[in-house]
């Protein structure tokens, strides 16, 4: 199995643990990732408010490069915003004659052209549909031992385009986590918005969303994410009283996969997560939740009733 890999800017910057763990996990699963040569930014959620054409031209440039340099391969994008921006080109530009011509006219300035033949895939899609849960289970060395995890999907991999999961009641990440031996907790915040870039432009508004999500995750050993912006928003403000004073590790799904596959902590960069401290890392190492502390039995009962 082989994919044209589009890491995106965040994964080269503050979310390197996502990039490193994606590569490590894919390698362990025997999947080959080939970086799209010379890739550039997809525009994230900033291009649309500035330029209607740039909003499509930026992601289209990367698809044009993949089409030309890595023909026949689907593009794998781990970041939600990258994934949606690339997907939008296939759904909104290809097949709309005027717009497609305009986008290609813009790309033509640097000698590129996108015909529209490249499939765009999110990592969750690839994990459940191409690799499959059985192959994931086979690779497990040290399962997650009923770790209680809340699956946080965020928005843009589920909406507006329904591709690999139910946008109202997503289950793909729960299924991967169950395969790893974890215990996904039922909650209704998994597809709610974290505020995205509103956390920069109007933090007082985004903080409401973050507080509600963190509150919903209470009782979890960790929250699993597949988006660098969700991950950052959920972990960066846990010190802020406006976020409700909830402390829970926010990990990438691929970091949890790596740990279950028996990879060492440095190979999934567990030290880069700001919501983690040394004792939490030790807890994960020893699968601490397998052993209830004395007196905690009553709490478990209370939680279940």
């Amino acid at each position, binding site marked *: 199995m082989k994919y044209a890999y589009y890491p995106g800017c965040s994964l080269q910057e503050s979310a390197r643990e996502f990039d490193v763990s994606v590569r490590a996990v894919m390698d362990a699963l025997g999947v080959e990732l080939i970086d799209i040569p010379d890739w550039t930014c997809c525009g994230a959620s900033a291009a649309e408010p500035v330029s209607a054409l740039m909003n499509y031209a930026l992601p289209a440039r990367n698809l044009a490069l993949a089409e030309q340099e890595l023909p026949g391969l689907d593009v794998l994008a781990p970041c939600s915003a990258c994934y949606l921006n690339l997907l939008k080109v296939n759904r909104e530009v290809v097949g709309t004659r005027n717009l497609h011509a305009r986008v290609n006219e813009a790309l033509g300035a640097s000698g590129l052209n996108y015909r529209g033949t490249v499939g765009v895939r999110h990592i969750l899609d690839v994990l459940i549909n191409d690799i499959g849960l059985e192959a994931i289970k086979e690779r497990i060395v040290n399962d997650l031992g009923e770790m209680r995890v809340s699956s946080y999907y965020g928005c843009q991999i589920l909406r507006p385009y329904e591709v690999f999961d139910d946008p109202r009641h997503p289950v793909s990440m729960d299924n991967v986590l169950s395969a790893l031996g974890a215990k996904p907790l039922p909650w209704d915040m998994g597809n709610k918005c974290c505020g*995205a870039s509103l956390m920069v432009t109007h933090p007082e508004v985004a903080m409401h*969303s973050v507080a509600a999500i963190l509150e919903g995750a209470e009782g979890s050993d960790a929250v699993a994410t597949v988006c660098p912006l969700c991950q950052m928003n959920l972990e960066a403000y846990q010190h802020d009283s406006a976020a409700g004073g909830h402390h829970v590790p926010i990990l990438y799904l691929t970091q949890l996969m790596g740990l279950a596959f028996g990879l060492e902590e440095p190979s999934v960069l567990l030290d880069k997560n700001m919501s983690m401290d040394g004792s939490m890392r030790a807890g994960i190492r020893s699968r601490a939740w397998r052993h209830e502390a004395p007196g905690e039995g009553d709490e478990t009962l209370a939680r279940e009733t």
Partner: protein
Amino acid sequence: MTREILEELRGEIGACMQCGTCTASCPNGFAMDITPRQMWRMVQFGMLDRILESRTFWMCSSCYMCTLRCPRGLKLTRAMGALKRLARQRGTWKIRKNSAFYDAFMENVEKYGRVQETSLMPGYFLKSRDPLLPLHYLPLGVRMMRAGKLHAPSSAQKGRLKELFAKVREMEEES
């Protein structure tokens, strides 16, 4: 240009039947001065000045919940993006402040090809013209530095998007 965007928008959401599902679905509705439902009515009526006074579309975080649920299948999140572009044409002080982050982001992309976070944020601080803003980010910056999350800007893709930006600018000025 402003009228053109508004006309296009009127076409896109002309079928809105004012059911209010968008308003009920919006996670940021509490921070808006005009509900999304009312906003679409104002667009249908072409009430440009009232629209531009509103902060509603700046509160959109592109979660696509309204787009998913709209019984008419209207691309409402995309319409919120178009309203942001519409407002940028007007460029009052308030609007410039609201679009400062997007502008700084795109300038960073144009310059570096890939977003460089450590140069994006100072660019945003400058554009926002709020001298206290960097202080707000100081504690987070320190924690990010400790976790090894801050990196000096990389020039690997510098200037790679120069032609694309120039061409798009030229095409958008023509139309």
